């Protein structure tokens, strides 16, 4: 089990392709919230205030707890329609 991290649209251009964070890494790095996930993946890049986050396809905020098996997605403001 691991945490699946997805980036969409311009967020993928910034952060690279989707990635999995292994369970061992989650435990070792004490990754427990959405903010922790970002910090682990971002290599120092700042997260803009308008970046949206979803856990298991529901919108959440940065303090939301994540667990192994979760899908965490970061993406820019939506522009459909």
């Amino acid at each position, binding site marked *: 089990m691991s945490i699946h991290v997805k980036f969409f649209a311009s967020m993928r251009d910034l952060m690279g392709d989707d990635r999995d964070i292994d369970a061992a890494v989650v435990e070792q790095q004490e990754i427990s919230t959405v903010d922790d996930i970002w910090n682990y993946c971002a290599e120092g890049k700042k997260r803009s205030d308008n970046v949206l986050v979803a856990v298991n396809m529901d919108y959440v905020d940065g303090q939301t707890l994540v667990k192994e098996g979760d899908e965490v997605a970061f993406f820019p403001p*939506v522009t459909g329609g």
Partner: protein
Amino acid sequence: MKIVIDSTSFDPWRVLDDYQKNMSDLDGQYGATAVFIGTMRDFNEGDDVSEMFLEHYPGMTERHLENICLQATGEYQLIESLVVHRVGAIKPNDPIVLVAVWTAHRKQAFEACREIMEDLKSKAPFWKKEQIAGGEDRWVEKNTKGY
């Protein structure tokens, strides 16, 4: 209620005709139908746009659109609703989005159609990338105001 994510061009009037024909058990019940169609223009923010790519978040997009329609169904007593949204490569004059609702009275139809569109524009996970004539691709940064 039906949600369609469509990777090929669709004809909105034909889609509506087909959908309504399958609603024949509701004949005589609905008195109002409101429809919105968003179509790709060939210019944006002063530039000619020759093509567009629409990315989405498979799974979350459908789920979010379903939730929007379920909520509107309760709030506005929708008899039926239909949302179709294009993804992938899109050309100018292609329909991008279709929202249609069927209700007893017009007030609910107008309000539900607009609210579904505004929710879709502000929260449904879609992203547009424009191909500018003689220029580079660019992600669209924001939508025009709906109110």
